[in-house]
């Protein structure tokens, strides 16, 4: 957790950061009426997220197979296991709202 600032009930700025990359802040936000969204926009947005429309974040790890095994053991759902693509070695995981993320592997230095 990086910052948890509250402006009152349901009004929150919450960010997390990977311990090894503390300058990267990821903001977490519920898709609810009020902050950012009107009621009908929030409903549409939730549907779109649930349908897997959004997948805009890319993470990298040192070892994709090991990370895949670990995250799977921790209950993370993958929509694509580690796969060699022409552009690189990649897996895709999904969060519990429907957002999906690419997980790649850092190039190893020989």
């Amino acid at each position, binding site marked *: 957790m990086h910052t*948890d600032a509250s*402006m009152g009930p349901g*009004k929150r700025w919450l960010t997390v950061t990977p311990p090894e990359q503390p300058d990267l802040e990821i903001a977490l936000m519920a898709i609810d009426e009020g902050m950012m969204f009107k009621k009908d926009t929030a409903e549409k947005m939730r549907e779109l997220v649930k349908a897997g429309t959004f997948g805009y974040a890319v993470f990298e790890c040192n070892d994709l197979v090991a990370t895949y095994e*670990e995250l799977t053991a921790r209950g993370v759902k993958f929509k694509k296991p580690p796969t060699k693509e022409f552009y690189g070695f990649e897996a895709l995981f999904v969060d519990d709202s429907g957002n999906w993320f690419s997980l790649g592997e850092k190039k190893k230095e020989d």
Partner: protein
Amino acid sequence: MDQPPKIYLYRRIVLAKLFIDEHYAEDIDLDAIAGEASFSKFHFIRLFKMAYGKTPHQYLTRVRIEQAKLLLEKGESVSDVCFAVGFDGVSSFTHLFKRFTKMTPSAYLRQQQQRKEEIAAAPLKFIPGCFAAQNGWI
């Protein structure tokens, strides 16, 4: 370059890491973990390092320090934190903590408590202006 290890070896390495993640506060015998994973100690260390970029011992220390930071952020005392995360003496804890975070545990404790008070007193200082404006907070 080394060939990547087979999938069952990966699973054992991952299990060893998850074991450290769960039992970091205990007196972990890393040699025993290698034994349980039925590797030779050196083979185990080498594979672990290949996957995680750190030896099991370095990784255990890292987990303990990160957990210590979380407890200090909650406001717990330095000596309580030291033993709660598995270190056996405050001086070695302080030394390692400083090496990783560039400040002593007590300085970190003070800094985090101060930051919490500031966030509570003036949250807008910590929220990006565009986001605050969009929500009508400023």
